[in-house]
């Protein structure tokens, strides 16, 4: 069972029902659940979208797109049915927040899905969980069945004339399916390859109908925004970055865990105070701020860094999925870079050549390099390959592989050079033999 952590600096909004037994629908109602949905049902779509815009809630999946704005793009009139699609394919290495949401607060996901449906005029919502999350899917399925039994879902929700249905769906192992267009392909029973954009899903999405796709954390945040009021929610965070965020802090810290902190919270404090600092009395070497696809930051870069989309972007990285991976001074960055690119090489769907070939060549090159068979020009070559993947693919997986690679090479060039001329890696014991 995933351990829950607590820290006095936390501001519990999305996680306030964690550990409170809220997966039980009666307990959830007792804790104030489903009031937000009733309020939205009474207020209507325009009000909901305005509230979401006021809240300055931004997508928690990684891109940070303003949720209210996304919802407002869905056309009011549509010949085809509209859909809400909840992305619970949580697969970005370093990220495990949705895991806890599904485990502890499945009804918040249901409520958020209904509210999104009310806002855009959809009658059906799909909640897609990665295949590995089977026990969480079962919790979600039970929650959905309970909501149907209470009349919160169905032809006439809460006794109104409004219909809303929810369907839960399992994936079967694929990082790429976390990309919104690939997610739609998977839900339509196909290989999870991305679609070209435009058209955007808000216009032509699932089954050709206008579709809003939100990350599970974004959706679970929605009922809290409604319940506490959009202005109050926005006031917690930093400018244009409303509310709190579930930060998954992992790696070499004393107390890893999922902590809910206000947007804009200082990264250094997050590591040293909230997560208890670097374990074993070691020192910080580097930190990946927002999941494996975000460029690495050095200790001096996090001194005054507030963790919101704008500030981390300005620092040359991304807030991404909020997965903070902390790396100590006993870690080989070349090995870390190799493990990162190996993941993207494995997960590239092969649809776009720069990503399919680029990830493979960088992996081969780094494997050889880490094993001590690298030559000086490999360093530039790795950088060249990564630069040529950027922006040349249908979906962001190519960029997600290239960006961290560029970060490692640029910021730790000396460590790459130290691996040259047959010198063994000073840190790692897991040296693979060259594959080419």
């Amino acid at each position: 069972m995933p351990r829950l952590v607590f820290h006095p600096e936390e501001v519990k909004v999305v996680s306030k029902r964690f550990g409170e037994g809220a997966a039980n629908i009666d307990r959830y109602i007792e804790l104030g659940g489903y009031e937000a949905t009733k309020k939205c049902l009474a207020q209507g779509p325009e009000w909901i979208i305005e509230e979401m815009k006021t809240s300055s809630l931004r997508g928690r999946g990684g891109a940070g797109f303003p949720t209210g704005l996304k919802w407002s793009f869905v056309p009011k009139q549509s010949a085809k049915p509209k859909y809400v699609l909840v992305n619970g394919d949580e697969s970005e290495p370093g990220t495990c927040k949705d895991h806890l949401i599904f485990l502890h607060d499945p009804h918040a996901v249901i409520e958020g899905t209904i509210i999104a449906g009310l806002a855009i005029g959809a009658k059906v919502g799909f909640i897609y969980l990665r295949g590995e999350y089977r026990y969480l899917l079962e919790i979600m399925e039970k929650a959905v069945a309970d909501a149907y039994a209470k009349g919160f879902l169905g032809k006439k929700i809460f006794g109104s004339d409004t219909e809303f249905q929810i369907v839960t769906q399992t994936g079967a192992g694929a990082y790429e399916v976390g990309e919104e267009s690939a997610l739609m392909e998977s839900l339509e029973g196909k290989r999870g390859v991305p679609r070209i954009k435009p058209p955007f899903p808000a216009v032509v999405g699932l089954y050709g109908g206008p579709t809003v796709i939100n990350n599970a954390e974004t959706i679970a945040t929605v009922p809290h925004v409604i319940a506490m009021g959009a202005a109050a929610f926005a006031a917690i965070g930093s400018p244009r970055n409303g509310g709190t965020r579930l930060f998954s802090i992992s790696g070499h810290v004393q107390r890893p865990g999922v902590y809910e902190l206000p947007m804009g919270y200082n990264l250094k404090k997050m590591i040293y105070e909230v997560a208890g600092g670097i374990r074993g009395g070691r020192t910080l070497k580097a930190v990946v701020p927002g999941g494996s696809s975000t460029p690495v930051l050095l200790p001096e870069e996090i001194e005054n860094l507030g963790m919101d989309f704008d500030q981390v972007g300005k620092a040359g990285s991304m807030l991404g999925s909020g997965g903070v991976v902390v790396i100590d001074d006993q870690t080989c960055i070349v090995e870390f870079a190799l493990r990162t690119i190996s993941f993207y090489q494995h997960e590239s769907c092969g649809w776009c050549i720069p990503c399919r070939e680029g990830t493979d060549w960088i992996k081969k090159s780094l494997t050889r390099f880490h094993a001590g068979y690298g030559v000086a020009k490999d360093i530039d070559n790795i950088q060249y390959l990564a630069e040529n993947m950027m922006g040349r693919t249908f979906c962001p997986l190519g960029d997600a592989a290239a960006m961290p690679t560029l970060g490692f090479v640029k910021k730790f060039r000396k460590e790459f050079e130290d691996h040259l001329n047959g010198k063994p890696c000073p840190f790692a014991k897991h040296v693979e033999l060259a594959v080419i």
Partner: protein
Amino acid sequence: MSPEQTSPDTMSIFSPALAARFDALVEKYPLRRSAVVPMLLYAQDEIGYLSDAVIAEIADRIGITELDVRNVASYYSMLRFKPAGKYNVQVCTNISCMLRGAYDLYERFQEELGIGHKGVTADGLFSLEEVECIGACCWAPAIQVNYEFHDELTADHVPGILASYRGRAKAEGKAPHA
């Protein structure tokens, strides 16, 4: 063959429960083929892997070609075309787990089981896989045995974990292949 013999009802390799699950699932979507991915996984859970017969039955029930089903199935990493062990041990070695000793854990599993990546023990009880991130980064290193998570592990936990599954298999009183 007469049409009666080829209908899914008489030729089905799905259990009645799995067939009922399929029938309920397929009604939920605007398009039948949306059931392909979940059905492949649920059928694999029951039968152990995606045999030719499973592919054929899913194709038939959905109304698409077997080639189309294979094309979809080959994309997803959890789906397999060969049997795995009764207990499939999946060790995450991605970054967060790697930083906290996942490779020591993985090596210990290899030693204890005497198999490598995607290997199956001779008795068919265990198989081993090195897998990508399983979404347990804050409780690293973590593994999944079939769908069960085990987290915050060290290599010393390995014999105990394997013993508990051996015990479970014994308690079920079935041969691993049954």
